Each structure stands twice: as C-alpha cells, then as structure tokens.
C-alpha cells in the first residue's frame, strides 16, 4: 500500500515509510512545481480540467481528479500505467491542444509529473491496472504483404464488430450513432474520422490502434473489444483502420492552388478522371473571434478542406471537399435554433477574392478600404447526386443556394445573383462541392497570375451560422501555363537565330580581315555549326 503524505503526519511518516515511497513523494512535489508552471493553465490548479484556457477547448482538458484516462495500455475502465502517462506527456495528444513535452522537460521532470498526476486521484493507491499490451505483436512482424492481408481481413472484422455504427462505412466518423447522440454534457459523441491519422489522440500506429480497440476509451461509447474479438481479429482490425488513414498521403499543405489545364469540358462530377488526377492541397481551417453574436469560436467542426482546381481555356473550376458527419440533415428548424448553440442550420462554403487583385483585404469579408467578392454556396434540404450533364442548374434543383456577395467589411454585404455555377454532393460523411466560372468573369484568372483566395466553411449541425465558421488564411489561386509547343519553338527560334546572327557577324568580320590571327576563328565557328 502506498501512503499519501499529510502535512501533520509528515515527520512521523518519514520514519516509517519505506525509502521508495518517500522518493515518490519527493517526485510528486517536484512534479507539482512543474505542474503549476506548465499544466495548470488548461488542467486547472486542482487538476479538475478547468483551467483558464480550458473554455475554448474541445476536447476538454483531462480531469485528473476523476481520472477517466482514455489513452491506456490497460483494460477498460482501469487506470493507465506510469508508462502510459509518461508517453502521453512526452508525445502530447495529436489533434488536441495538448503539446508534447519531450523537448521541453527532461526525462526526470516528466517522470515527476507522472507521480504528481497520480497523487491527484486516490484511485492510484488502491487499484492495480492490468496490462493489455500484446506480448509479441506477431502480426507486426508479418512484413508488407502480411499487412495487406491482415488489413483485408480487418475489413470483414470492421463489419462484424459493427464499427460502422459510429465510424461510418468509409471511416469518416459519420456513423448513425455518432451523429444523433449527445452525451451527458450536451457535447457530441464525435467518433474518430479514420482518414485523419494525425488526429488519433493515442497515436496512429497499428500498435496504438490495437490498444484502443482492445481496451476501449474510458467514458465514451468506444467500449473494449477484448472479450468480443480474438487477438488476431483485433490486430487485423488495427491494420485495416491504419490503412484508412489516407489524408497525408493524398494531400499536401500548400498556399497555391494551381488549376490543371485540361482539354474539353470541365467534368461536373468529382469522380471523373480529370478531377481525380488533379493535385489536391490541404487547407487548414480554424475558428476565430466573432463580433455578432459576441463569442470566441474556437471549436469549429471542420478542421480542414481539400481543394482541387481545373481550367480549360474557357472556364475555371474548384472542387472543395471536406468532412461533415451530418451533411444535408443539418437543415432543420432554423428559426428556433440558436446561433452558436448546437442547432440545425444549413451547411455553407465560401470562396473569397479581393476586388482589387493586388490587395489582400481583411480575411473575412474584407474591410472598408478593400472590398472583396465572395462566392457562397449553401446546402439545400435535400441535395441530390450531382447531375451528370453539365447544364449547371443542379443548384436550383436540389434546393441549394448559390449567391455572389460583394462585401466591404462584415457589416457591408451586398448579396447578388451568382455568376458562377455550383454542384454539390454529400455521401458517407463528405461534402464535395464544385464551383465553376467563366474566365470572362471576375476575378480574372490568368496563367502565371496569382489571385488571392480565402476559404471558409460553416457546419450547421455545430450551430455555425453568420460569421461563426471555420476559416482559412489567404492562399493564392493560379492557372497552369498551357503545355503548348510554343515555348520550345520560341527557344529553337532564338537558338537558330543566334547561330545565324553569329555566322553573319563572323562572316562580316572575316570579310574585314584586319590581320591573320582572326582568320582561324570563323573557320572554327563554321565547323561548330556543321
């Protein structure tokens, strides 16, 4: 049994408590000092997860007193091991505000923090967690071909274990349980989107995923599967889930959206080859301070979107894709729903360009000196699949709204009819929206010219309406230069032109014949040309 020092009994205890326990108590004291420097801002002075910065955080910081730890290598409902706590402190929690402290705190300091955290809950004194770490991890040694086979078997386990109920058929976290339920505090049960490995709080290696499957995440609908699936099944499932993590491989963060030049019409559906072959870039989105209603919107549900762009000499088009578990179902009782409260509003996406392409106005609706134009698309109540023909009237047919805004600050917005065309499609937790505009319209897109562009997304299910949204910074859009033979022909022309000119000049010089020493040069030049 371990003993927690009580100040009054401290001296007395020092005499009878074994050395190791005293060392641990000292460690927790040192840990306390570090905690009060580094951790209390978010986790609170008493460790209840209620620090000053906790207000805008989702997920909320861990309450160390309640000790419902999620990232563990122990059985469901149990406490984490010291090593688990140490790893999380060192590595941080990807996808959350919790940073890794590996490079800031020494090994010793992090160990003493572990001791301090444990001293905050009496459970650590009485409970002994049981490790579920796989002893040999046989599947890990299976080699690349083994991974593929394992992941293939894992897909069957995914169905058998009903993972799709929360994580969705495509793994985008859009399963029916996750989208309809709130837990006790009115916060959503957001199941993990498996396509974004970088948001897996406990790491996205198959070994990490195996531990989450086996032991579950305490306090969430993600229960343990240790008794429901065999060890092999859980490894297979872990490999399958790891294989769904495709976002970093497919996309890269960049500041320039380059429209690929294609022949023929721009395809109206995103699954056609030109769109699939176009490079996509990942645009990170973030919340911001909102004036009306006055609040700080730190918790938008859309963390990023991907953009592809095409042009064909007559039109330019942007394909925006982002994940939204609820999609068109967000549309509901708009009048009774409250802005900023979890309610029902339609989803929206915005593309913003400066009116004067050489300026970069304020990133949301510009400012009084620098006007912007905005392309706005809003989901209708029942978006249908994108129409196969390119007539472009799908926006009207499914109740979608498309409009162009001219704005000079968020209080000066002039809504005009759209001069662009939009098609939208939502399936399995993903919106795909294509904007298309003639090159004759505004803004003027030209090869080699960089037009500033800002993206923003509103998720209605998250109560996002008005200025409450996830927004990007300024990026640039440009058109790929035509891959014509002209540059080559010009280069060739210059080359041959230069040669001919040289011959001409040299032959003229030869004709002058000032002295003998110059006679040899033109002859050499002639040889080179031949």
């Amino acid at each position, binding site marked *: 049994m371990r003993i927690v020092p009580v100040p009054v009994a401290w001296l007395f205890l020092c005499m009878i408590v074994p050395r190791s326990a005293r060392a641990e108590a000292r460690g927790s004291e040192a840990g306390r000092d570090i905690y009060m420097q580094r951790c209390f801002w978010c986790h609170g002075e008493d460790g209840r997860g209620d620090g000053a910065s906790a207000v805008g955080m989702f997920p909320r910081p861990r309450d160390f007193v309640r000790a419902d730890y999620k990232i563990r290598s122990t059985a469901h409902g149990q406490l984490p091991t010291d090593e688990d706590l140490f790893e999380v402190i060192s590595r941080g929690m990807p996808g959350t505000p919790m940073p890794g402290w590996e490079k800031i705190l020494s090994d010793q300091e992090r160990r003493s923090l572990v001791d301090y955290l444990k001293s905050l809950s009496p459970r650590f004194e009485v409970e002994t967690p049981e490790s579920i770490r796989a002893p040999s991890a046989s599947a890990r040694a299976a080699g690349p071909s083994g991974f593929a086979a394992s992941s293939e078997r894992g897909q069957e386990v995914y169905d058998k274990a009903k993972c799709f109920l929360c994580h969705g058929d495509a793994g985008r976290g859009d399963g029916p349980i996750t989208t309809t339920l709130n837990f006790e505090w009115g916060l959503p049960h957001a199941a993990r989107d498996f396509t974004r490995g970088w948001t897996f709080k406990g790491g996205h290696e198959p070994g990490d995923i195996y531990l989450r499957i086996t032991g579950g995440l305490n306090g969430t609908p993600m229960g343990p599967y240790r008794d429901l699936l065999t060890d092999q099944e859980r490894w297979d499932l872990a490999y399958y889930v790891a294989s769904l993590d495709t976002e970093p491989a497919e996309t890269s963060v960049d500041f320039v959206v380059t429209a690929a030049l294609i022949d023929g019409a721009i395809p109206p559906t995103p699954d056609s080859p030109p769109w699939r072959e176009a490079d996509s870039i990942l645009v990170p989105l973030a919340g911001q301070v909102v004036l009306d209603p006055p609040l700080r919107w730190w918790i938008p549900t859309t963390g990023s979107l991907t953009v592809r762009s095409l042009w064909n000499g007559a039109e330019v088009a942007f394909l925006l894709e982002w994940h939204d578990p609820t999609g068109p179902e967000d549309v509901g009782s708009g009048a009774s729903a409250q802005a900023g409260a979890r309610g029902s509003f339609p989803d929206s996406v915005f593309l913003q360009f400066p009116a004067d392409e050489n300026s970069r106005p304020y990133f949301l609706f510009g400012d009084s000196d620098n006007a912007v134009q905005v392309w706005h698309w809003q989901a209708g109540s029942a978006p249908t699949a994108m129409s196969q023909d390119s007539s472009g009237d799908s926006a009207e047919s499914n109740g979608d709204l498309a409009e162009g805004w001219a704005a000079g600050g968020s209080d000066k917005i002039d809504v005009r009819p759209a001069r662009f065309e939009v098609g939208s499609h939502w399936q399995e937790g993903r919106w795909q929206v294509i904007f298309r505009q003639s090159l004759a319209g505004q803004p003027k897109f030209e090869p080699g010219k960089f037009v500033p562009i800002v993206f923003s997304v509103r998720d209605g299910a998250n*109560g996002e309406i008005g200025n409450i949204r996830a927004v990007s910074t300024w990026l640039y859009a440009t058109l790929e230069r035509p891959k014509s033979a002209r540059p080559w022909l010009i280069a060739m022309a210059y080359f041959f032109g230069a040669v001919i000119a040289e011959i001409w000049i040299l032959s003229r010089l030869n004709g002058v014949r000032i002295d003998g020493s110059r006679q040899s040069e033109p002859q050499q030049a002639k040889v080179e040309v031949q």
Partner: protein
Amino acid sequence: MTTMFLPFLTTLLAAGSADEALSRDIGTKSEIRNPQSGIQDLFNPYERRKNGPPLTNVFHKVKSPSWFLAKIGNPMSHPAARMPDLKLAEGEVLDIMAYLKSIAVPDFAEQQWPAWADKGFEEMDDDELDAMFELTERGQAVWSNARCSICHRANGPGGKLVGGFVDLRVGGIDLMGAGPKLVRNWLYAWIKDPKAYFPNTLMPRFRLGDGDIRALVEYLLRDDAFRPPEDAEPDDPERWKVLDEPQRITHGRQLIELSRCVVCHDIKGIPEIMSLRAPSASAGDAPPTGTFEFLAYDLRCLSCHAIDGRGGTYAPDLTGEGSRLLEDWIATFVESPDMIRPLSQQMPKFNLTADEAKIIASYLSTSRRDPRIPESIPGGEITEQEIERGREIFRAKGCFSCHTVGDGPGGVVGPDLRLVAKRLKPGAIWFHLKNPHTVNPYSAEPDYGLPDEDVRALSAYLSTRRE
C-alpha cells in the same frame, strides 16, 4: 513584472466575458452554465444519459415477437427513428430477441381486466360491445383532454401533428400500430407513471384515475386510429420456440455487446461501457415532493418549455414569465388550461390539485423574473382619457385584425385579449408593446415603433380588458 503580466491578464479577463457565450455553445450542463444563483436545476429530459428506453422488460411491452423482427431488422422503417440499421441477418435478430426474452422479469405489473378484454369485436356479445364502446368513448375524451396528439401521431382523423414535435431530433412518437403492438398490462402501467418504466422519458405523468386509464387503454387498443391500414397476419406461436434456445441467448448477448446497444438502452446483464457519472438534476432521482422541482420532474415541464436555455422549444419559454403573468392566473391556468392562442395547441390538462397549481404559480412568480419588466405601467396614474385614446389606437392600427378584445370585431391569429388584464401584469403589457420583438424575436406581431405616450395609452386600455 507587472507589465509582463498585463497582456496576459487582459486576455484572461476577455476570456471571462466570453465564458458565458461559450458555455452556451459548448454544453447544457449545470457545471458549465451558470443559471440564476440560488435556483436549483430542473429536470431536463433532453439531457438524459441514454436516448432509448430500457429493454429489460420490453417483452412485457410488445404483444407480438414479429414486431421485434421488423424493428430490429429494419429500424429505419420508422420515419422518425434514430436507431441505426445494425445490418443484421434474420437469424441474428432472433438471437437478440432470445436474449431480451431471457432477461424479462417473470412478474410484471398485472392488472384485472373484464372477461371480454381479449376478445375481438366479432366474438363479443351485445352487452360486452356496449361496455366496450362506452369505455372507448370515454377514452377518446381522455385522449383529447390530455392533448396526446401534441406528441403522438396516429392513423385517424385529428391525430396527425403537423410540423413535428418539440425537437425535430426527437420526432413524434408514432402510435399508428399501437393497437396490435402493445400489451394491455404494460400500457396501463405506462400511462399510470411512464418514468417507472423509462426514467428519462419525455412523457409527463398525467394524474389520471384508474377509470380514465382503463378507458384510454381500451381506446388505444381498439380504435382504428391506432391500427395500421391492414392488420398483420396472426403470429404462429410455434415459430417463436427458437427464442428459448440457449445458444441463441448466448449469441444474442454477444451481438448486443458488439452493436453497443447499451449506449442508448439499459439492458440487464450487459456491462456499461460509459463509466461517466450522471449529472445532478437529470440523474433521475426524484426531488422531494411538494416542491416545484418535483412537479417539473413529474410533469416533464421542460419537454415543451425552456427555462434558462434548457428544455424544449415547443411551448413558451418560462425564463422570465414570473414578471409577465399574474400569479392567480398561472394557478388557474395550469389547473385547467384554457385557450390563449386560438390557432396554436393548448396546454394539456394534467389534473393537478389546487395546491400543486399554487406551487407552480408561486415558483414562477418569485423565482423566474425578468428584471427588465416593470410591475406597473411607468409614468404614474392612468387617466380615463388615456384609456379612451388607447381604444382608438387599437382600432386605428388595425390590432383587431389579429386580436379579439370583445369590443367590436376581432381576429384569431394573435392571442385573445378579452381577458388579457387577468393574465398579464400591466407592466408586462407595456414592456411588450414597447417592442414585441424583445420578448419573442420571431413574433409575427409587427413592431410599430409607437411613441411612448401611445404605448402608455394602449397598455392602459388593454389593462382594462378583464371581462
């Protein structure tokens, strides 16, 4: 040192001012939000731990196992259902049914029923038919008095609610198939006290007597409004023998665990996976009787009304209602609700005692006040001339096209104002007329932007409308 900290302090202060707005965004939990100090949190059925009903005794609720086969096999067949499609084969559904059947308690709320209770129409003799029809007629009266159709959709005339229930995510509960589906004993116990079966239900306990409950049960089980257009074929009892096979029970238990049914349902024998402690007010423990907190818990006031941003949106928000309504009127109204807005639904009659009605009236009048609303019309005593001028403004502005005052022609779009002075405090009438959109931003009533003396005159006139 101080200068170093200053920027940080300002950030902290700014964070504090945004706290309130954000806590509204983030959650509805009492720990996060900070309601008016000193007022206890009321039971809010929308903050429930689990969305679905407990399944332990569901085999005592449903008459025919084939209903389970349809429901579990294809949950989305019900338009308002939130239960996901579990993608199960028929054999697997049978396994789940076998487990649910195995956990039902053997003795469940038995009642004595007349001998003809289980007979069909054609098997009854004339006396039995008379007794039955007398009972169903009474049941129909109970149904309409209790305003059951606010929440329930049925298949008959007058039973279809347009526009959905309190919260679109909840959906009206479809009673189209209640007749053939429900077990008599269960239905009796349910109406008597719904939360005894499902602690977090949205349904209030209507204080109905034994006779009324029996009449309502008979009406629900017999009337065509609660039957599908075509009756299903009678079940073959032989078919359900498989539900007693032990290996089905074991496999069913495993399927229930894999499908994580316990996220939404309490099921005996299935371990909980969410170890969170329940929050205080909505935990399901009854508050002490004789308090408003108990009545809010028992009548589920927050299923329809909201207070401090918690609760439903179907009925008026009660947050500041104590400053608007006269205490006597509240007591009379909740005891026997009357029509206020002719085109809207009327509040159900809960059969409250006079004492209970007084508890509600005094709670709202003392604890739910809006500091912006004055007690009486500001600006001193009201004169006869002002009342007369108010009458003229009422006519001149065309108020009568929506409201009835019992003084010339009147409309039915807005509330009936014949007795408005018995309902609203004069100060509240004045505050409302200053700008109707302060009270309800979505109000259809235009904001005429009346000058102060007109507002005073109109309020003066309306506060004379008491008979």
